[in-house]
């Protein structure tokens, strides 16, 4: 039972990191019908930048903010310069383009920052909190991770639901033609959306970095698990993406705890296939079926 608690806490913590990635993917999917396979590599890149900042003596928090800011800028640039020309082309072009960005970033990072695996600092302790004489099986950094992702989600929710800017962005994603007629700068909204999504990805990158370490392909698996979570949730639904990603985090944690850590990714695959066999569009997709 005690082990179960430990695995659950680990699963939820990792799941929140996957949730940030999943949410970033869903935001981009809803706005541009593109899966950004470079999301993980972009987060890796911003994590390296944060690490450089911290290594030069800046406090953790400055590195953290720099990661988020460069994430936003990187996302906006990728959308404006590379993705915009392929938005109206066949979907596979965007897939290959984002794979190209992924490969390029994973090659450039070791050129700039060195090839060896590096550790990443934590802002608060990552040993379990002890209350009185009992350990609580959760560390301040776990709480920070969960809290940071929750705050980011809340802020995004407020921006999208409560501000005019959010309304414009939703309109641009929902129906670009009508939005354009109503005077919304659709292109600018898409750039902004990609920037915000990449910011969320950068958050996931810095939160994952202390446990996955920093090397060029360190976010590959995080991206795949986030993507798995987003698909389980149905790709259309932000809430679904978060639930799906936490479910994936829990599944991975239980499989690696009870069966063997090598098989954890297989656990993610199995839960994905089971969900898709029952609901080919994911759990939270109540939209129209692809029919006549």
């Amino acid at each position, binding site marked *: 039972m005690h082990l179960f608690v430990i695995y659950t806490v680990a699963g939820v913590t990792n799941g929140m990191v996957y949730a940030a990635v999943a949410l970033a993917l869903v935001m981009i999917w809803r706005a541009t019908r593109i899966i950004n396979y470079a999301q993980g590599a972009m987060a890796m890149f911003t994590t390296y930048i944060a690490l450089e900042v911290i290594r030069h003596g800046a406090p953790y928090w400055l590195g953290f903010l720099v990661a988020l800011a460069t994430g936003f800028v990187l996302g906006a640039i990728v959308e404006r310069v*590379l993705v915009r020309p392929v938005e109206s082309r066949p979907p596979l072009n965007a897939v290959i383009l984002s794979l190209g*960005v992924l490969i390029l970033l994973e090659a450039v990072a070791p050129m700039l920052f060195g090839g060896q695996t590096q550790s990443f600092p934590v802002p608060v302790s990552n040993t379990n909190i002890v209350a009185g004489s009992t350990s609580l099986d959760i560390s301040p950094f776990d709480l920070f991770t969960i809290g940071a992702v929750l705050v980011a989600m809340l802020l995004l929710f407020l921006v999208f639901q409560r501000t005019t800017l959010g309304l414009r962005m939703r309109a641009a994603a929902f129906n670009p033609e009508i939005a354009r007629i109503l005077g919304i700068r659709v292109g600018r909204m898409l750039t902004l959306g990609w920037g915000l999504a990449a910011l969320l990805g950068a958050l996931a990158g810095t939160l994952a970095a202390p446990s996955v370490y920093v090397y060029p392909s360190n976010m590959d698996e995080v991206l795949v698990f986030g993507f798995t979570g987003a698909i389980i949730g149905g790709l259309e639904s932000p809430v679904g993406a978060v639930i799906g990603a936490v479910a994936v985090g829990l599944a991975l944690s239980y499989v690696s705890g009870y069966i063997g850590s090598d*098989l954890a990714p297989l656990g993610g695959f199995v839960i994905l296939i089971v969900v898709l066999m029952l609901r080919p569009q994911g759990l939270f997709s109540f939209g129209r079926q692809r029919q006549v």
Partner: protein
Amino acid sequence: MTTALRRSTLARHGLFFLALAIVLLLLTSFVFDPYTNYNVTGVAIYAISAAGLTVLTGINGQVSLGHGAMMMIGAYTTSVLLTWHADLPLILVLVASIAITGVAGAIVGIAGARLRGPYLAGATLALAVALPQVPSHFASIFGGNQGLSVPTPAPPAFLGTSFTSVQWLAWIALAAGVVTFFVLANLVRGATGRRFRMVRDNEIAARLAGVDVARTQVLAFVISAACAGLAGSLFAYWVTVTSPSGFTLNLSLSLLTAIVIGGLGSLSGAVLGSFILVYLPVWTSGFASSLNLSSNVANNVPLAIYGIVLIAAILLFPRGVAGGVASIVRGVTRMVRTSRRGALPTAPEAPSP
């Protein structure tokens, strides 16, 4: 004779591939140096695998990001069989690898037949990440992270003592490639290929025309997996060690990118893409080492150039490099024709073998 050739696709393809086989036989036996033979073997292996993916993704429209996982099944079938019985005849090992990977393809295909677009891409991507973890967990069968070593097939005695095993493997891989492309070229031009394209272009119309969509999609998965199984088996012989690190996510992504920059949906595009996949690192690493860069930079130049090539190819040639070249050629011929005898409609594209 010529009309018979024009009528019979089978005879035309047969002649073409026979001629190709003879040319390749002569080149590998007398012209190429060992290093070229080694690289050409790689091109043949990737081309076989990419051709399978072309059928699945290019012609049937199902995007797979997990084709490398299928190659891995073929490679491990070969390695495990050879670990048990080192003296199994090569042809038997190849057939067994094709069969077992084909069955795995059927399973993935049945699961994938209900999935579309990013859902299928995500499921195959998860497979590509999950499957390489299996050998390290079941180390007693699959040799764990060190992997299993694969004996190099020895050339038969009648070829003489000067005939190297590198040449022999090049023969085997190229022969397998020629046979695979011959079979696929006929398949793609025939009724099965038409059904594949119909399902890709308009699923509902295909269903109305009496095509069993799900069965067609599963068949495409089986064919592509069989190709990957053959390629994986040859890959095991080629690299002589089968370990999880040979089948990273990068392999799956490289195969998909190769068929797209080669020209999606054409078998010749699969060859072109595989050629780029093998020779771009060869050329660029030579270029990088000539610049006297630090090892961190030099080691990653090939990968960076590959990324740039992908991005540039998509932005400049949306129909792939082969498509881009074809449209340039068409543009030039049109200009020539227009200048000679006024505007004429251009001839339809010649069918590529």
